[in-house]
């Protein structure tokens, strides 16, 4: 792990996110939730997830599932840096017939494992994929990012029960704890209280970190899993992280970046 490399990767991911959102123009984009996971995705794709550009689907690749599919700009941006997508693909975001819509569409060659966007479903697919690895005696790992708002969905808790019951130590679940959901604060809409203790009580190996501290993210992700339990990382993040205008401002959950705003925020990188 080289911190400079991680920093650069994260910077590029943020650049790609705002570039794509800006190019999307009036179609608008989910900005806040993509930026809150930018550092998590950067570390995953820079140093953790084993996947590379290929014309064939590699059965041994690690699987990444973005269960909070609306944060797809972060995923697309990381895939560009990994050369699985082209930078010019980003310019087609949400345009007619594009493969890059406002929620991911399954496209394994490009590194998109599943179509997600309806909340509470991606994690369950992850359990199936992790179980499949055990049955096939494959060593690939499964990484899933879920949102804190997404934890309102009952299906998340059905799934956590099973991940723990099946002892899926090949699975890492990251909760993007940015404290906001579409129309306001989690605490106002549906209070999630202590997420870490919830996941611990379901039988997961649980960690809580600053989701923007690249070193910490790397260290907890690379920590070997020896407990025969799924790993859950509650990552405390800031919605819109990286740009003063967006940070903790829920108006930027889904919005339009105009030319003048784009010019202004670009200076912050």
């Amino acid at each position: 792990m080289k911190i400079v490399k991680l920093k650069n990767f994260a910077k590029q991911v943020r650049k790609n996110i705002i570039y794509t959102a800006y190019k999307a123009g009036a179609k608008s984009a989910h900005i806040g939730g993509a930026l809150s996971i930018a550092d998590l995705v950067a570390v995953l794709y820079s140093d953790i997830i084993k996947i590379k550009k290929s014309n064939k689907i590699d059965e041994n690749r690690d699987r990444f599932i973005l269960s909070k599919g609306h944060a797809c700009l972060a995923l697309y941006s990381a895939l560009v840096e990994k050369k699985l997508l082209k930078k010019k693909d980003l310019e087609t975001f949400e345009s007619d017939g594009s493969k890059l819509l406002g929620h991911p569409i399954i496209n394994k060659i490009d590194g998109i494992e599943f179509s997600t966007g309806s909340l509470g479903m991606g994690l369950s697919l992850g359990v199936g994929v992790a179980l499949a690895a055990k049955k096939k005696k494959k060593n690939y790992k499964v990484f899933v990012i879920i949102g804190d708002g997404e934890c309102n969905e009952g299906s998340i808790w059905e799934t956590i029960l099973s991940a723990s019951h099946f002892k899926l130590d090949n699975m890492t679940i990251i909760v993007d704890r940015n404290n906001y959901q579409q129309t306001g604060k989690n605490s106002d809409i549906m209070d999630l209280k202590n997420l870490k203790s919830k996941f611990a009580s379901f039988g997961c190996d649980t960690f809580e970190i600053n989701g923007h501290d690249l070193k910490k993210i790397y260290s907890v992700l690379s920590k070997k899993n020896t407990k025969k339990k799924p790993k859950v990382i509650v990552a405390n993040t800031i919605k819109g992280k990286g740009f003063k205008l967006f940070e903790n401002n829920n108006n930027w959950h889904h919005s339009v970046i105009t030319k003048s705003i784009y010019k202004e925020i670009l200076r912050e990188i």
Partner: protein
Amino acid sequence: MNAEKNIKLWSTLGMRATFGLIALELAKKNPELIITTSDVSTSAGLDRFKKQHPDQYIDVGIAEQNLIGVSAGLSSEGFKVISTTFSPFQTLRCCEQIKVNLGYMKHKVCMVGLASGLVLGNLGFTHCSIEDIGSLRSIPNITIIVPSDPYELFKVLSEAINYRESVYIRLTAGSNSKIINKKDYDFKIGKAVEILPGKDVAIIGCGNILSNCLDAAKILKQKNIDCSVINMHTIKPIDNEKIKNISKDYSLALTVEEHNIIGGLGSSVSEIFSDQGSNCKLIRIGAEDFYSTGGSYDYLKNIYGLSTEKIVEKILSNFKQNEK
């Protein structure tokens, strides 16, 4: 396996227990088969399967949304997956998971809906299932099959696990179900089977209710009305050609199903009649969009006009109005 030899035994056991026996056979030939359930091993006749093939059996507990998610995840990794639980929970409870994972993403899962229709009427309408076909029929990339008896279930399962898309298999009736198919016959998904030829009236049915259709045809024969009975086992993709022919060749046709008359077999057939611009009168027999008071299978069949006597009455009162 000589399936024909088992016709009697299987019909005594009913579709659910037969499903468990067939699953054992399928596992022999398909090492990549996995059965996923929501705490229904006993109800699905899977206790032996669970003991003999623990590595091919996954119980996710009473959590049907996760059942479909996990099944789709396994399927995406190359496993042949059969999921099963009681029909309402196999379909409506996880309907959006079916839409996104099996319809939209096209992951292949063979879903077996236990005890659909009216057979669990004593348990109330939480456990009856008269909405399953209607709900799933509006989702692209899902095939829907209603086997008429346990022997047909055997044929359906053998084809469905290798089929090009997800299949919902809807099981009806209980133990001591009626034998519809007495000997071997050609079964093909999407191809209706004429189980009784007749020139006056076409009775189109699906599931074990076809036994009432056959009994009704027998009674009507004595009254000089010659009914044909068609086993429309596949509701989607439905046998367009057969239905078009019926609409041309008959002046009266009926659909008979243990389902709401909205959304199921009757709707499917009437859509084709309408596209065709037919002169044939079509009567849809089934639940007329209401929840009845609960009770036994026979009690509910009678209320919904599905008993042999009610089918006969319906044909007598309508056939008179048509010129023979």
